[in-house]
């Protein structure tokens, strides 16, 4: 493995790079990669994300290499770009987390009561169906008749009332006052 570059040597290589010397690309890259990855890892706390951020930072650095100021240390310049990338990444992540959180909260607020109500309604209907099934055939017929047009004579109304009364009582026995 190659010897790590001193700061002065790295600065000299960076000057070569800034002047368009393509041979300096791998040298500068190998010198800066571990430094930038370590810095990004300390910033975001995740090695994989740190490597991605280091790559993005170095892509920017090499694209703007001609703007390098030879009076400033190359490592500091690289870390400035990396810090900017890390901060942008962190704020994007925080914003995304907030958005997801907000979306989940609003969705649960909107949909949860409807869902509960729907479940409760379905359970109530099933329970009622079971109760109706348990009723004697005569009472079931009386209930059906009461919903048919033309059977609104007093005796029908009275029978329906009695059936519903029994049904209500039975419901209370099983489910209470709900």
């Amino acid at each position, binding site marked *: 493995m190659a010897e790590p570059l001193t700061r002065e040597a790295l600065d000299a290589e960076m000057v070569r790079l800034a002047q368009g010397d393509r041979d300096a690309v791998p040298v500068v890259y190998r010198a800066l990669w571990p430094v930038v990855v370590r810095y990004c890892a300390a910033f975001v706390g995740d090695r994989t994300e740190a490597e991605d951020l280091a*790559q993005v930072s170095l892509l920017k650095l*090499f*694209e703007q290499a001609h703007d390098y100021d030879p009076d400033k240390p190359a490592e500091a310049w690289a870390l400035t770009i990396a810090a900017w990338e890390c901060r942008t990444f962190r704020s994007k992540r925080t914003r995304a987390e907030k958005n997801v959180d907000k979306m989940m909260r609003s969705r649960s607020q909107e949909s949860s009561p409807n869902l509960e109500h729907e479940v409760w309604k379905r359970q109530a209907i099933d329970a009622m169906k079971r109760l109706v099934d348990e009723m004697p055939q005569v009472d079931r017929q009386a209930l059906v008749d009461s919903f048919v047009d033309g059977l609104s004579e007093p005796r029908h109304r009275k029978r329906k009332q009695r059936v519903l009364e029994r049904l209500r009582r039975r419901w209370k026995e099983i489910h209470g006052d709900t």
Partner: protein
Amino acid sequence: MVTPEVRRLAEIERAFVRGRLELAAAGVLAAGVLMFVAWALGVEGKTFWFGVALMALSAASLYFGRAPGRAVLPAFVIGVIPFSALLIVQAMSGHGCHTGGCNTLCLPTCVASGLVAGALVATVAVRVRETTGFVVAAGTMVWLVGALGCPCIAWSSVAGMAAGIAAPSLWVLFVRRRQA
């Protein structure tokens, strides 16, 4: 098998090339601006071949960098001297061409402004300890910028300007070589 490091390095090299191409595009743009100014001030169409050559040379110098790359900015700045001098002379004295040459102050202006520009190139080269590559590239680009200001291609004027630029620049190179 391509390792992640090789892949990353390839991407980095592409980014570097992209940066150099953007820089070269800036050179083309600067030459384009000068061509537009020359065209707006009534310079003859054939002169634009100097502009095309300037575009190509500045783009290549900026892309490949090193000494010629460093020469582009000073060359454009210094080149404005003969460029504007020719346009001013043309505006003040008028210009007329006939068989055999131009009857204006073109030639003396070209030589004089070329000498000034050449002296400035030499001064910059000495100040920033530049090499032959810098002087040659800067001198050529200064000449091309200056020639863009020629109202018509009078070869004697253009050649006079080249001689004016070359004299002090080559003198500096000669002296430095002897000192070394």
